């Protein structure tokens, strides 16, 4: 066998071997070392990215735009460094209070966590949070923001870090209910850009624009009643057994900094 082919095969075998050793858990020490070293930089850069990229807003009408412009003008007049800092602290405080109130109301144990990164491979939309197995987080635990708006589920968890699959990820599926008179059931699926779609809604049930979508509780680990979003559009074809609804998530999935993971036993 030529030496070049031999080198190629030996490197490929070595890579496979290391992947195998990873799955046996023997590399966890080295992996945790690199995670601990890179995570602070990742967190800082993620927050910086949210700050500089999170300035774009979408407006549904001219009135909204005018209102936002007026608000922006007011903000500019009062724009002082100290006030901005104070505002940020207040927002964070409100967010944490809302999450705390929600947790008390739901009587489900939860863990607050900071977002330290997002997906870097093209496989989907995910977030990296700084809590993991050590905090009791398990795969499929739901992740919420503010007062119970579901943003995703845990897909991967390590000692001190977890990965959240967002609801707009192309592999995400959550059992949901429309808050209409029929309490229509369906499946909220990602893979449609910033919006999500609710599929498998029976054709004979009435879904209106503006109806709220919440989790149905039919999944083992996702409690009933967590807000997902609002119906923006209904797609109904006479020859299809089911209708679909385009749903706008209630949380801005591009600007998440703090989340709560609901610890489902």
């Amino acid at each position: 066998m030529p030496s070049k082919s031999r080198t190629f095969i030996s490197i490929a075998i070595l890579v496979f071997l290391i992947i195998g050793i990873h799955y046996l858990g023997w590399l966890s020490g080295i992996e945790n070392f690199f995670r601990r070293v890179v995570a602070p930089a990742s967190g800082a850069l993620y927050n910086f990215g949210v700050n500089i990229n999170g300035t774009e807003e979408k407006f549904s009408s001219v009135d909204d735009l005018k209102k936002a412009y007026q608000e922006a003008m007011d903000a500019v007049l009062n724009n002082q460094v100290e006030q901005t800092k104070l505002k940020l602290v207040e927002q964070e405080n409100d967010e944490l209070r809302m999450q705390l109130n929600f947790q008390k109301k739901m009587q489900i144990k939860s863990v607050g966590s900071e977002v330290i990164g997002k997906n870097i491979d093209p496989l989907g939309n995910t977030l990296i949070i700084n809590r993991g197995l050590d905090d009791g987080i398990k795969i499929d635990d739901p992740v919420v923001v503010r007062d119970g708006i579901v943003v995703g589920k845990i897909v991967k968890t390590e000692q001190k870090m977890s990965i959240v699959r967002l609801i707009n990820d192309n592999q995400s599926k959550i059992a949901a209910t429309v808050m209409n008179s029929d309490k229509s059931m369906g499946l909220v699926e990602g893979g449609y850009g910033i919006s999500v779609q609710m599929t498998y809604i029976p054709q004979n049930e009435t879904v209106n624009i503006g109806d709220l979508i919440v989790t149905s509780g039919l999944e083992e680990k996702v409690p009933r009643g967590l807000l997902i979003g609002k119906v923006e559009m209904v797609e109904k074809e006479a020859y299809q057994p089911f209708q679909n609804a385009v749903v706008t998530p209630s949380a801005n999935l591009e600007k998440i900094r703090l989340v709560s993971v609901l610890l489902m036993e």
Partner: protein
Amino acid sequence: MRNILSAIGGIISLIVLVSVEIGLSYILPFPYSKINLIFAVLIIWMLWRKSGMVVWISFFANFIVELFAASPFGLIVFSGTISMLLGYWFFQNIFTNRSWFAAIVLTIITIFLYRLIYAFGLLILFWGNAIRVVPWKMMMSTLLWEELFTVLLVGMIYVLLTRYSRQFRSEVIEAQRFKI
């Protein structure tokens, strides 16, 4: 002592490279965020040092990147390392002249192979029910933007290096080749 210091320096450089790669993907808006800094730096490094060490650097860099990815472990490490190995083979046997053309073509080929092996890995995972869907559309758009911006970056670094360093000047490359 010197070996220990150079090993520590290597690890620090690797961590910085990966952190900057991750940071760029967070800070830059789409499609600029698709730039692949690791491949750009490694291809320039390969042309500069003519060393097979790039394969191992690629392995360790992709290993760290993989720790922050949602994809099943091994997908990024395997595709990243094997594509760099093939890229190095192309450099040693076909695009050997270290010109700007070689830099550009090597970048295009290596990134294409990276995404090809990645897609093949995804297909295997899909057949094994480890993932539910293969996002072909997202993969294609990532490949195109990644190729475009990484090629531009490699081109820019190459131009800067030919201006400020002797290593990439054509007369030096010719002299090295014919041992003048």
